[in-house]
C-alpha cells in the first residue's frame, strides 16, 4: 500500500518543491528536487537537440540523395516541430525577418519548457520512494517534481521574454516611439488635443501591460502544471484515504481501480498539456514581441491615407 500513499495526506506536498535527501543524512535545504530536475531537463534538452541536429544535418556524400534526409524518428519529430513553428506559426505572425531573428530564442523557450514539462511527468519521486522502501533507510530523494510547477522558474523565463520584448521595442521604435507606444501610439499623441485626456489612462494601462503580459505567461504555465499534478496526486490519494477511513481492502481496491483509471486518463491529458503549455508560452511570447514591431502594412496604409488627404 505504500506506493498508493505516494502523495501522502496532502496532494500539494507532492507537487511542491522539497529539499534533496540522501540516505540518513539531514536534508540539504540549499538544493531542492525541482532545481535538480531543472538541470536534468537541461541535460535532456541539450542531449536530444544535439542528437537531433546531428541527424538533421546534411550527411556524407556517399549517401547520395539520402544525405539530405533526416535520420531517425527523434530527428524527424524535432525537424517537423522546428519547421512548423518557424514557417507556419512564427512567419505568418511576425514576418519572415523577425521570425528568423527570434526563432532561436522562441524555440529555446518551447523546447526547454517542453522538456521540463515532460521530465516532470516521470514519477521519479515515487520511484525513489519505492526504492527507499525496498532498501532499508535509503530514503533517496535527489530528483523529482516538475520544474515548471515552480513559480520562480517560470518567472525567470517570463523575465527573459520581458527583456526581449522591451529590447525589440526600443530597437524597432526608438525611445520616442517606445514612449509614444506607451501613450497609445503616434496617432493619439499627435492627434487632436481632446484625445490627450485618454493618454494618461492608456499610459497606465500600457505600463501595467508591460508587467502583466510576462506575468500572465508565468502564472498560466505555473497554474497549469501545478494544477495538473495536484489533480493527479489527489486522484492517487483516494485509495489511501479509503484504507485509512475503512480498513476495508475490497473498498480500497475498488476506489484505487477507479481513481487509477482516471489518473491514467488525466496523465494522457497532462501529456497533451505539456506540449500545449510549451506552445502557448512561446506563441504568446511571439505575439508580444511582434506587437512591438513596425508593421509595414500599417505604414503603407498611413502613406496611402496621407496621399489621399494630399489629393483632396
Amino acid at each position, binding site marked *: 500500500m505504500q506506493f498508493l500513499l505516494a502523495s501522502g495526506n*496532502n496532494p500539494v506536498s507532492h507537487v511542491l518543491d522539497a529539499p534533496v535527501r540522501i540516505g540518513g543524512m539531514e536534508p540539504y535545504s540549499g538544493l531542492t528536487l525541482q532545481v535538480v530536475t531543472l538541470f536534468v531537463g537541461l541535460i535532456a534538452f541539450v542531449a536530444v537537440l544535439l542528437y537531433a541536429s546531428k541527424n538533421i544535418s546534411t550527411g556524407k556524400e556517399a549517401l547520395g540523395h539520402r544525405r539530405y534526409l533526416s535520420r531517425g524518428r527523434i530527428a524527424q519529430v524535432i525537424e517537423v516541430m522546428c519547421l512548423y513553428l518557424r514557417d507556419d506559426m512564427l512567419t505568418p505572425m511576425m514576418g519572415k525577418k523577425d521570425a528568423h531573428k527570434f526563432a*532561436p530564442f522562441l524555440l529555446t523557450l518551447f523546447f*526547454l519548457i517542453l522538456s521540463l514539462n515532460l521530465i516532470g511527468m516521470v514519477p521519479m519521486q515515487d520511484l525513489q520512494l519505492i526504492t527507499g522502501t525496498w532498501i532499508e533507510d535509503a530514503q533517496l530523494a535527489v530528483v523529482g517534481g516538475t520544474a515548471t510547477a515552480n513559480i520562480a522558474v517560470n518567472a525567470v523565463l517570463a523575465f527573459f521574454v520581458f527583456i526581449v520584448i522591451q529590447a525589440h521595442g526600443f530597437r524597432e521604435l526608438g525611445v520616442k516611439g517606445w514612449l509614444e507606444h506607451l501613450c497609445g501610439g503616434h496617432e493619439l499623441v499627435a492627434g487632436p488635443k481632446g484625445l490627450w485626456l485618454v493618454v494618461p489612462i492608456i499610459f497606465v494601462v500600457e505600463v501595467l501591460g508591460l508587467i502583466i503580459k510576462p506575468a500572465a505567461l508565468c502564472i498560466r504555465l505555473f497554474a497549469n502544471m501545478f494544477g495538473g499534478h495536484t489533480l493527479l496526486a489527489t486522484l492517487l490519494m483516494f485509495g489511501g484515504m479509503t484504507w485509512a477511513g475503512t480498513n476495508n481492502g475490497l473498498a480500497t481496491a475498488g476506489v484505487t481501480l477507479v481513481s487509477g483509471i482516471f489518473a491514467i486518463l488525466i496523465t494522457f491529458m497532462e501529456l497533451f498539456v505539456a506540449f500545449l503549455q510549451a506552445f502557448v508560452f512561446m506563441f504568446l511570447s511571439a505575439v508580444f514581441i511582434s506587437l512591438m514591431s513596425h508593421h509595414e502594412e500599417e505604414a503603407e496604409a498611413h502613406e496611402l491615407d496621407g496621399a489621399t488627404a494630399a489629393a483632396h
Partner: protein
Amino acid sequence: MNIFILANEAAAEASPLSFKLLPAFSTVAVFLVAFGTFAFVVWPKITKALDARDEKILGEIRAAEAAQAKAKAAQSEFEKRLEEARTAADDMIRKARAEADRQADELRTRSQRELDDMRLRATQELESAKRTALAEIHAVAATLATTVAGKILKREIQPSDQKRLVDESLSEMTSR
C-alpha cells in the same frame, strides 16, 4: 521516516507561490546554457541542413524544368523536321508521279508515232510492191499476149506493135 511525511511538513509551511532565489538563479543559468546551445550549435546546424535541402530540391526542380523545356524544344524540333520530311516526301512522290506520267505520255506518243510511221511505210511499200507487181504483170502479160498473138497471126510483131496492142488490151480491160 517517510520522506513524504517530511514533505508534508514542509508543505504546511511552504506556499506554492513562494519565490525562492535558488530555483530562480538556477533557471537563469539553465536558460542561458540552453539558449547558447540552441542558438549557436543546434539551430545553425538545423537551418543549414534545411537550407541545403531546400537548395537541393529547388535545384532539382529547376533542372527538371530545364530538362522538360529542353525535351519540349527537342520534341517541337523533331515534329518540325518530321513535318518537313513529310512535305519533302510528298513533293518527291508528286514529282515522281508527274515524271512517270510525263514519261508514259512521251512513250505512248513516241510509240504511236513509230506505229504510224511503220504503218505508212508498210502502206507505201505495199503500194510500191503493188505497182511493181502490176508493172511486171503488164510486162509478162504483154510479152505473153504478143507471143500468143504472134503465133496466131504467124507474123513477127514489132515492139511498137506489141506496145500498142498491150495498151489497147489494157484500155479494154480497164473500160470493162
